[in-house]
């Protein structure tokens, strides 16, 4: 009959009204500051640098290879490699800055990094009162321990740890093998390894 559709609609909205009071399942809103969102493991905000051990700067996995700097589409990464007093590269960054006001969170840096050093963070509350200084993160702000990496992405971190351990084992094996083959011919210069 004419008008019954309106009554049906009224019934549905009334059911919502009553239901939302006694059935909290209906309310999908997250009351944000009090209720923290449960982020999925692969959630990503901005990059951070993983370090092993206790010391944040010495333990950095980063070798200042600048691959992430070159790949970064919005060019928000700035790296200066550290050199010793002879001007020899020390395979660690002296300056590692990320301007997260420019970063678009594309994860390309994390994908190209050959040393599993740069990873994507879960931290998203980055609002500050100064976009020029407080959104430019330096080496010290970016360095976070491996345990933190484990806490935000356990699956991926475990895989990375296993892979790193495997690479380390292979490298040791190779070193041992090279040491075994190199002994009889001590005249071979170290910069020219045997054909592998």
């Amino acid at each position, binding site marked *: *009959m*004419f*008008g019954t559709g*309106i009554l049906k*609609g*009224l019934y*549905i*909205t*009334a059911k*919502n*009204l009553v*239901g*939302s*009071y006694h059935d909290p399942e*209906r*309310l*999908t*809103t997250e*009351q944000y500051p009090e209720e923290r969102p449960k982020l999925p493991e692969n959630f990503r905000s901005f990059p951070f640098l993983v370090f092993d051990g206790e010391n944040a700067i010495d333990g950095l996995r980063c070798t200042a290879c600048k691959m992430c700097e070159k790949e970064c589409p919005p060019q928000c990464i700035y790296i200066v490699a550290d050199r010793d007093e002879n001007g020899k590269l020390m395979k660690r960054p002296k300056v590692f800055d990320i301007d997260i006001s420019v970063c678009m969170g594309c994860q390309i840096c994390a994908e190209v990094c050959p040393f599993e050093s740069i990873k994507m963070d879960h931290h998203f509350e980055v609002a500050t009162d100064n976009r020029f200084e407080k959104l430019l993160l330096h080496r010290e702000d970016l360095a976070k321990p491996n345990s933190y990496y484990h806490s935000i992405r356990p699956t991926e971190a475990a895989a990375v740890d296993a892979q790193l351990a495997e690479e380390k084992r292979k490298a040791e094996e190779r070193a041992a093998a090279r040491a075994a083959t190199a002994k009889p011919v001590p005249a071979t210069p170290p910069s020219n390894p045997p054909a592998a």
Partner: protein
Amino acid sequence: MKPCALAGFASEAPTFSSLEALPGDLSDWLVSFLPDIEWLRWLTASLLAIVLILTVFGLTFAMLTVTERKLLGRFQNRYGPNRVRVFGIRVFGFFQPFADAVKALTKEDIVPAAADKVLHLLAPVCLVAFSLLGFAVLPYGREMTLLGNLDAALLFFFAATSASELAIFMAGWSSRNKYALLSAMRALAQLISYELPLLLVAVPAVMLAGTLSLQGIVLSQADWLGGILPHWNILTPWGFAGALIFYIAALAESNRCPFDLPEGESEIIAGFLTEYSGFKYALFFMGEYFGMAALAGLGVTLFLGGWTAPCEFLQFIPSYLWFYLKLVAVVLSFMWMRATLLRLRMDQLMRLSWKFLVPLALVNLGNAAFWQFSSNWEGAWLAARWAISLAVAIVPFLLLAKTLTAGLGPRQYRYA
């Protein structure tokens, strides 16, 4: 109250609690401090009444805005506003209107360069003023009418409140914005279409009460069948049909969903509100809510017995509280409608009014005339009176609905 006391109360001649005349007595007491000059006392008493109305309906407006937002949220399984706290106290977000007021007051007032500056300023003021005029003639209680028993109260009410559409047109025209102008034209078309059924269903109430005075219309309904069943107009066949038509037309008159075409956020970006900001914008909202409350008050007066209690023994509750309760209930039902129904299209809006509501309102007029004519029928004739009146109310509704909706639905969805 115990049953015996209840029975005793009902059988007595109507004695009303002292609360009934409290506002009047209070006003008289305050005025008695003034020097005994007639015009001064009259002026002060009138101002006091105006201040009372403004305070009560101002606060009602504030609470209605937050209630509407919270209810709309609940109707859609959301929380609605619940964050505002004052001194660390959060009363379910009911401080929201005060935060909104501070925000509206501190925002920049932007006037378009090409706008008609005077009209642009005047439009929100006019809207609030015209909406408030309706409150002057509503009977709030047995002892409470602002303009007393104005003989042409109903006429005054319609004249005053329909002028609010003029203010909307002023806003749309002066903004010099095509969306605003479109919305203003929609508002006028809507006004003309829905003023007619609104007036036509108000006429039967006038016919049966024999007076245009709103207080008189309420008094004509102030009786109970057996002390329980009130003689409200809505409980008669013509009154029920009339109340439904009035309800629809009042929704349209106050530009509420599903008739919020002049606003139409999704089509004409809030229409006449597009070029308004800050406190002028807030004034439009105030005017809209005042207009809605005034129309709801008129509906209560015409069909729901005004300030009369639903049962005789409930008269110990002051009459103005009954009026207020009914008014709030009607406004809450408006919110329920808003949460449920979608906005109509312009042609649907016109068709609903001209082809459906206006003919039904005209039939309803005849029905009310028959009801008045048959008021002295008794016995079997009484049953015939109800049967005929019900038939006259329902049959045209069904016939008209069937012819109007023929071939319109249910819609078959075909995908390419």
